[in-house]
Structure formats: C-alpha cells, structure tokens
C-alpha cells in the first residue's frame, strides 16, 4: 500500500478540538486504505492525533514537525470506523 495522500486537510489556525473533528468528517468520506494528510499548528495536535488515531483505529503513518506546525498522514482503517 502506498503512502501517497488521497486528500489534504488544512487545520492551520484551528484549536483543539476542531482538527480531530475535521479529520473525522474528512475520513468519513474516504475509503479504507486511503491516506489523509493533515496540516495543523495547534501545539496539542501532535499528541491529540496520536491518541485519536489509536482510539479510532486509523493508523497514523507519519507525524512530523515542520516550520509551519505539524504534518500528519493518516490511513483510513479497514474496520469501517472513521
């Protein structure tokens, strides 16, 4: 399975809990196996996406700190959950 993004989500400027809510809504529209790229600059996003992905069964492929904030790659899980 490749890790190329299928969809990009801009959460720059959003505070907790908006980034994870936006990610949930975006993943709902995607198919299992597809990859969502999330850009966020909320300082809480790093630990929040890690916990959120764990809780929802959507693997977090990448969590990277950049100059702008963070980049996350999330694969939609196969369990039919978002």
């Amino acid at each position, binding site marked *: 399975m490749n890790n190329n993004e299928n969809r990009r989500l801009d959460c720059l400027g959003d*505070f907790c*809990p*908006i980034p*994870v*809510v936006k990610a949930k809504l975006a993943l709902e529209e995607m198919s299992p196996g597809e990859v969502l790229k999330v850009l966020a600059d909320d300082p809480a996003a790093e630990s929040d996406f890690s916990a*959120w992905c764990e*809780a929802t069964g959507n693997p977090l492929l990448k969590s990277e700190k950049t100059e702008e904030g963070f980049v996350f790659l999330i694969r939609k899980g196969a369990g039919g959950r978002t």
Partner: protein
Amino acid sequence: MTIIFMSGTFDKAMAAMILATTAASMNLEVTVFFTFWGLSFLKKGKRYRRKPLLRRMLELMTPGSMKGLPLTHLNMLGVGPAMMKALMKKSGMASLEELFRTAAGLGVKFYACSTSCSVMGVEENDLIPETAGTVGAATFLGEAKNSGINLFI
C-alpha cells in the same frame, strides 16, 4: 461518554462542548444531561407568559439561552463573558454555539432534566429543537452505566 451539565456557566459549557465533540469524533456515543442551572443552555430564550410570580422572577434572573451564560469567575455583570468571547474570536477559537452545532451534527444527544424543568416551569416548547427529550435520572443512569466515562460539570 456521559456528561451531567449542572453549572450553567459559559466556561464550563465550553469544557463540556469541547469534550463532547472530541469524544464524538472518536466514535464514542455521547449524552449530555442538562440539569438545574445547566438547563439555561437548552433554552430558546426567556418566556414570562403563563408563569406564576416566582418562576417569572427566576426567568428574569437566569440566562435565557446558551448565549447569555455568565463566567464562573470574573463575570463582572456580563463584561467578563463579552471580553472572553472577543478574546476567543480574536485567537480563532470556535465559539460555544459552533461547538454545540458541531456536537449536534456528530450525533451527541442532549437531554433536559425533567425535574429541573418542572421546578423551574420550563416546558418542552421552551427548549431548542436539538433537545432529544426531557428525561429523568434513571434514563440518564441507564446510559451512564454503559459508558466508560462520566463527567459532572
């Protein structure tokens, strides 16, 4: 997740709505039970008609809707909440109303406490349409029993 929202203040309502939307985004079933002072959150506005004196006085002195909730600290006769809301808007934070609408859209259930409604003279028509029902403690506890997280705010 189940939440009892009793305090009826803006800052605590923010905490309740942030946790409700986040839990719903994590696929947890979320129920919020509004009781006593918290009931103001679900009200459409103030209604004085067809109410006896004591209830009219209560209506006068309590917030008519989620827009009018006071701050727990530094309320300063309503100046505090206005300052807090301005600060939140400036920093790009979602408002209480936005968080509430998001929670409702994610399927969070909002119940009004039946006893609080009876005591305060709040009728079903006085509540916003997102209210899933007016229920008692047993209904709430029935849901809380099966929930891994229960909060009293």
